[in-house]
């Protein structure tokens, strides 16, 4: 980067940034398991503290249950009911009931447990057997701690005492997968953000490039960071500056050339006029036929040079857009008629048969009449100079298709040999002007003659 103000550095590279993102994702994955585990453990312990606290452990609960039963010695059934309800509110996960001395089931909390209303001996035995079920922790305590007074039963699902470590053990797989998913999601999100921002900057740059100002050159963009895109923006601005400078230089040169040609054309015309004057004076003298013929030739060449100079100047002005164009609504029938009227005597004198055909109604076009006049002049001059052999000129305006101006001749055609080939610049000027006026010209030229049709196309 010879011209770069900021040198390329890895630190500012987009590539480095993205590599960093990938590496941090890779590094994060091994840490996922311990990290998540720690997080979960903390959370579970925190949860255990509140939620599983009254259950604490099976033995603790068992002793509480027995204490309660002992305290209810000789209590009335209502008191026992009230006590059980209180206990239920302390241990909501537990279910409990009590059976009186006659073996009848009293209060059940919650209601609807599969417990017979009247306890028989076989059922009692069966109940005690089932009470050793691993999943449900069951405590049976005699009221007043003595058999015969009835008993109360507490059932608690074993999960209520389960330790966090046990829970963690069970969820191990889920934790790992969800951890990886989280990291992956995070990685995708960061990548997306990364590329979205790159894309946005690129789109902005593209818009700046494709929206040129009036001068045809895009305006510079604001440069931000010094990464790859930032340097692209700087180069873009640099390019615009160069373009503007060269455009200015070009305009200056163009103006210089225009002035030069304008001056030159005047400076050429003056001696040419003097030559003509002297040739004319010479013509007043007594001369041989050969001398007269030479003078005639000189005269013709002077005419030709004069036209060349005029065309050169017009062409220069036209191509640099300095030929004044003032469009207005013009009746082309009337314009063509006046123009043909001016050319008529010249054609007549050259022995042309003149076929003019113009409509009675006006046809309006929007253009600079001087331009159209100049174009038609060039074509008519071309006919007069190069199509004399045909002795025919057609000057017509047709109403078809919004108007068509037609100039016909029966000369050797534009490709045919003619004395002054260099005058082709006149036709180039006509073509240029027609293009700028958005008119269409159709030129049919062959050995039988040439037809020029000018229309709005």
């Amino acid at each position, binding site marked *: 980067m010879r011209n770069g103000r900021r040198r390329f550095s890895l630190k500012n590279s987009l590539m480095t940034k993205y590599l960093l993102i990938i590496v941090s994702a890779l590094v994060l994955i091994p840490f996922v398991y311990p990290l998540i585990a720690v997080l979960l453990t903390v959370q579970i312990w925190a949860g255990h503290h509140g939620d599983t606290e009254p259950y604490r452990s099976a033995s603790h609960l068992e002793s509480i249950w027995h204490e309660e039963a002992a305290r209810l010695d000789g209590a009335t059934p209502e008191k026992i009911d009230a006590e059980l309800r209180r206990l239920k509110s302390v241990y909501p996960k537990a279910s409990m009931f009590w059976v009186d001395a006659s073996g009848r089931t009293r209060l059940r909390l919650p209601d609807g447990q599969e417990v017979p209303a009247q306890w028989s001996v076989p059922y009692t035995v069966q109940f005690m057997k089932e009470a050793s079920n691993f999943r449900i922790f069951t405590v049976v305590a005699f009221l007043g701690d003595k058999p015969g007074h009835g008993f109360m039963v507490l059932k608690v699902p074993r999960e209520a005492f389960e330790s966090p470590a046990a829970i963690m053990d069970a969820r191990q797989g889920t934790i790992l997968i969800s951890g990886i998913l989280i990291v992956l999601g995070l990685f995708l999100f960061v990548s997306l953000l990364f590329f979205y921002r790159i894309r946005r900057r690129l789109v902005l740059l593209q818009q700046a490039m494709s929206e040129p100002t009036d001068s045809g050159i895009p305006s510079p963009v604001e440069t931000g960071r010094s990464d790859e895109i930032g340097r692209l923006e700087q180069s873009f601005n640099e390019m615009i500056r160069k373009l503007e400078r060269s455009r200015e230089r070009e305009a200056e040169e163009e103006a210089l050339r225009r002035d030069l040609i304008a001056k030159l054309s005047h400076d050429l*015309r*003056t001696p040419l*006029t003097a030559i003509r004057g002297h040739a004319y004076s010479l013509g007043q003298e007594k001369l041989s036929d050969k001398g007269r013929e030479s003078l005639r030739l000189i005269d013709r060449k002077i005419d030709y040079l004069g036209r060349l100079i005029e065309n050169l100047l017009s062409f220069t002005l036209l191509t640099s857009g300095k030929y004044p164009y003032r469009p207005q609504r013009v009746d082309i029938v009337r314009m063509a008629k006046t123009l043909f009227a001016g050319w008529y005597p010249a054609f007549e004198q050259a022995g042309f048969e003149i076929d*003019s055909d113009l409509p*009675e109604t006006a046809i309006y076009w929007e253009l600079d009449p001087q331009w159209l006049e100049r174009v038609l002049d060039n074509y008519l001059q071309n006919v007069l100079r190069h199509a004399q052999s045909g002795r025919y000129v057609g000057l017509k305006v047709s109403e078809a298709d919004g108007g068509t101006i037609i100039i016909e001749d029966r000369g050797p055609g534009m490709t045919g040999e003619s004395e002054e080939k260099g005058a082709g610049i006149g036709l180039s000027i006509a073509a240029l002007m027609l293009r700028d006026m958005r008119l269409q010209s159709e030129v049919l030229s062959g050995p039988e003659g040439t037809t020029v049709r000018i229309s709005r196309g």
Partner: protein
Amino acid sequence: MAKRVLYIEDDADIGQWVKEDLERRGYEVEWLQSGDRAAERAAQADLVVLDVMLPGLDGFTIGQRLKREAPNVPILMLSARTSVDDKLQGLQFADDYLTKPFHPDELAARLEVLQRRYGLSAEQQIQCGHLLIKPELQTVIDGRTNEEIPLTAKQLQILMYFLRNRGLILTKEQIYEAVWGEPYMEGDKTVNVHIRYLREKIELDPSNPQIIETIRGIGYRVRP
């Protein structure tokens, strides 16, 4: 009486030659090599021939000044009409244009036309076919019988317009606007009708007109 031409040209070679040529053709020529004194001399001239490219004041400024000082003196500009400078577009003061290198015959012919257009050739009588026209008396006489041909005012105006522009082809739009002094309306037949009546009076054979020639599709012409 010889017509006075004020000729402004900086190039000595050309100036000398044109002055001599015009004098040979019967003009009285005052040749100035710069435009500084042109405006004060213009009043005494009948015609002005002005070169555009001049040292000091440029031709445009001088032309505009001349037209202000002497609006009735026609100006022939030695430049291209469709040329060049933006300024030329606003060139309303010039009555005609001639591009260098012009031919002396062309210059003389243009000066003739300009004089006629400005009514300067106050000829006593104009011959046109069998007609004798006396512009000052506004009368047209049949040369064979020596009797006056009675023309309406408009017919006379049309005929005079043709004579002022003798040799040029005139469209009916041009004739209408010159004689009636108002813009031509599309499809108007007034000019055709007037010319038909005019021909009935002045042509020997109105169905085969010899004086006012019809140029098909374009207009009319009175040959010189």
